[in-house]
């Protein structure tokens, strides 16, 4: 394995780990539920993308294992496809359950005309 390749792989994984760390700190520091969810999106996107690209390069260039590379790609795709769905469901569920942030929101259109309020 050449040194340059090694550095590129390490940088990718490091970037992924860094954004995952940032997301975790964000989950702890953010003031309310919705903002915490915003920060957690960081983990699921950039964290996963970074680590997956790093391992993908490793699989292609070092292991030379195409099936492994495809599986990593599919793992990445599934995390990226399913993350927004849970995001919508959690956010809407929290709101409809009556959860409101302590500090009032700047603008709240959802309250004004809740489309699901019968």
């Amino acid at each position, binding site marked *: 394995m050449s040194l340059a390749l090694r550095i590129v792989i390490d940088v990718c994984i490091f970037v992924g780990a860094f954004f995952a760390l940032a997301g975790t700190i964000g989950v702890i520091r953010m003031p309310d539920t919705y903002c915490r969810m915003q920060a957690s999106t960081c983990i699921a*996107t950039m964290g996963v993308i970074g680590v997956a690209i790093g391992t993908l390069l490793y699989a292609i260039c070092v292991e030379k294992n195409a099936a492994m590379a495809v599986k990593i790609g599919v793992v990445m795709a599934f995390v990226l496809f399913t993350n927004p769905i849970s995001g919508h469901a959690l956010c809407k569920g929290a709101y409809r359950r009556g959860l409101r942030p302590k500090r009032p929101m700047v603008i*709240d259109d959802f309250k004004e005309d809740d489309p699901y309020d019968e």
Partner: protein
Amino acid sequence: MEGRTKSLKGHRIAAIVGTSAMCFAAWILFTWSTDPKELITGAVVAIVVGCFTGRMLVKDNAFYFFNPIHFFVLIYYWFVVLFSEIVKANWDVAKRVFKRDMGVNPGVIRVPTKRNTYYGLAFLANAITLTPGTITMATAESCGENGEEEVWLYIHWLDVKTTDREAAGEMIKGRLEKWIGRI
């Protein structure tokens, strides 16, 4: 009546064929071998899966993504447009997290969007949720003043810069909506 049932039948067969072909391609990618045994097993499984799920998945044109232009636009959208948006938004949120006062300014805003197919709408909502800083909470349809249908997205925005709905829509959707319209 006759023609209609016939076209319906043709549509169903096209849906099955399209779904099966996608499944078979995925199978080949997974196994990554050209052993005839593997290929035959894959073909059988793909056809069975296509028969069961084809009519649920395919609503309009079954061979839409077999047109290389559509396919490459989709790939370009994923790997260039969406990726760059995700990187930018991630950097923004990461910076906020490490600042002392995070400068969060949260709010739920309703932005208008163009009437699209359901798949297009789902694509847009998912893309907005994937970029950190914005989460789509719900979609809603309503009748506009002139009777035309309007589609709204309710978006939770981490840092509300403007409360004007049109401008906010431009800022959030930006390039994403344009590219999704092109697919």
